[in-house]
């Protein structure tokens, strides 16, 4: 696999910035009460979706989790209609029925966030099954947290994929927390990759560095595309904020939070790009402004969209 060139690097940076700033904006509008329900942001975890989705086309599939905005964005979801969905509006991808927790975009292969921990893992596996069945070279990606690996769904899906050598990459973003519980409470192992042995599946662990992720994901996705079967990819990262917006993280020391925030995949990448002269300060500012205006537009659009009419609630239960 080739090292990413300058253009790609700038793209990565732009995507990561877009995810970061979208999540920040969402925190703001959630606190305004403009978004209801549960909102789980992925701040601090922007590298994974970008490093992975860089290898995927619109035809490839991804199934994500409650913390899935980043993946949807990196997979190319139209921010306006995504935002409309998060605002519960009629024009939203899901007609306002789903909000953040079930955001989906069929056109871009986003098979949906999922309110059930582990729920998306076998669903993505099914997409990989379909790709093989239809003899395409599509690849599916399942993303999930380390907490999800406790569910039987994880186990049953990986077992099946390994037996059938399906074109799928299982991406575990291990941020060390499942809701309010640290990994030490709910896992007897340090590394999620230890779980791959159970399925005779190759496993790779990388740090929260977009280039490292890009490289490892590239190999795994290529392998899947060529018929080599599934891979488990673990990304060691950190959750900066609470489990959901509004979670004051009383269970987590201030220092731990500061330490997590200290390891900023976006800022680190920025520093590298500056040092390598791929970008200059002013480029960075420009990207920031441009991304921000796109986000603001999306929010404005979402604000102006009407809510669905209550009568529409009954539409389309059956085809």
């Amino acid at each position, binding site marked *: 696999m080739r090292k990413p060139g300058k253009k790609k690097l700038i793209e990565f940076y732009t995507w990561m910035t877009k995810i970061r700033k979208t999540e920040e904006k969402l925190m703001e509008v959630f606190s305004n009460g403009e978004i209801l329900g549960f909102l789980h942001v992925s701040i601090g975890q922007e590298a994974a979706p970008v490093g992975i989705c860089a290898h995927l086309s619109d035809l490839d*599939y991804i*199934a994500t989790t409650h913390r899935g905005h980043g993946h949807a964005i990196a997979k190319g979801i139209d921010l306006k209609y995504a935002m409309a*969905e998060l605002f519960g509006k009629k024009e*939203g*991808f*899901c*007609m*306002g*029925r*789903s909000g953040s927790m*079930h955001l*989906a*975009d*069929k056109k871009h292969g986003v*098979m*949906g966030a*999922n*309110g*059930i921990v582990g*729920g998306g*893992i*076998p*669903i*993505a*596996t*099914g*997409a*990989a*099954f*379909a*790709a*093989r*069945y*239809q003899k395409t070279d599509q690849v*599916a990606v399942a993303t999930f947290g380390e907490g999800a690996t406790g569910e*039987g*769904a994880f*186990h*049953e*899906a990986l*077992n*099946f994929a390994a*037996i059938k050598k399906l074109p799928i990459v299982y991406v575990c973003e291990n941020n060390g927390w499942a809701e309010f519980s640290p990994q030490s409470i709910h896992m007897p192992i340090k590394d999620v990759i230890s779980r791959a042995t159970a399925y005779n599946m190759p496993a790779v662990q990388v740090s929260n560095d977009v280039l490292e992720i890009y490289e490892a994901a590239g190999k795994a996705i290529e392998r899947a595309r060529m018929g080599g079967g599934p891979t488990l990819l673990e990304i060691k990262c950190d959750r900066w904020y609470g489990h959901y917006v509004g979670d004051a993280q009383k269970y987590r020391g201030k220092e731990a939070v500061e330490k997590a925030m200290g390891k900023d995949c976006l800022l680190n990448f920025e520093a590298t790009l500056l040092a390598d002269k791929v970008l200059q300060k002013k480029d960075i500012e420009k990207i920031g402004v441009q991304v921000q205006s796109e986000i603001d537009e999306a929010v404005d659009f979402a604000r102006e969209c009407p809510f669905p009419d209550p009568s529409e609630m009954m*539409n*389309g*239960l*059956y*085809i």
Partner: protein
Amino acid sequence: MKDIRYIFAIKEAMEEEMERDENVFLIGEDVGIAGGSFGASRGLYDKFGPERVVDTPISELGFTSIAAGAASCGLRPIVEIMFMDFVTCCMDSIVNQIAKMRYMFGNQYSVPIVVRMPEGGGLNAGPQHSQCLEAWFAHVPGLKVVMASTPYDVKGLLKSSIRDDNPVIFIENKTLHAMKGSIPEEDFTIPLGKADIKREGSDVTIVTASRMVHESLKAADVLAEEGISVEVIDLMTIQPWDRETVFNSIGKTHRLVTAHEAVKQFGFGAEISAVVAEEMLDELDAPIVRVGAPFVPASYSLEKFYVPGADDVKNAVRKTMERSF
């Protein structure tokens, strides 16, 4: 026309639909090389190969959700759950994922999937292998629930279910697997959502499905000798069910009995009864009597006393005839 067993009619339905549409495939435990625990897919593996007749590890949750993912990517899976009791292992797949994918994703996805499962007694297989749980699924918006009582019906309904773009829970009854019946040689389907009047009558309406259709018909024969004319409605689709046929019948008979093999309490008979009590109470000339299994788990050595039969239906009908308003 030809004579065929119920289990073989299932196989024919799957086989013909797999021939007709290359997106149709079968997945489940031992469905492939072994041809299915009850033999429903015998021969299909040889004909369609391992890609389309897919043996799985013992992992109901996994393979049902995998089928859901495949369905939302354009395939049309038929999932076999070996015994309905094991569907408890994949309720998340069916209820949180399959039933909701279409609606909650704003109709972007459709999930054309059939989840087949045999229910009920007949094998003396005890409490964890004899349950009838159709009422659960009928309570979940987004699912269709189908129960077939004859070889003809099972073939026609299964073909319709496979062609339907909605998820269908397709429930067989183990005691029917060996039943013989006559079906046309040519392709046919039976529409979902329509009930079938299996016997016409004028005094009492029995609303039933699956094995209890036959018990109701047996009861009707005996009752006819007593001068009671019973109409037997085979619902066939429990959700959405055919109100028109049921209402028309009650409009004629003014008496209702419901009958299913599931435990009586909170079974599908309750819903039929409640709708009638809400929408056509003044048509009723007698209390609505329900037949169902007693409120205990199925029993190994007492199975034959546990599952409801023709006698229970007879008694129920007689009860509705005892008095009128």
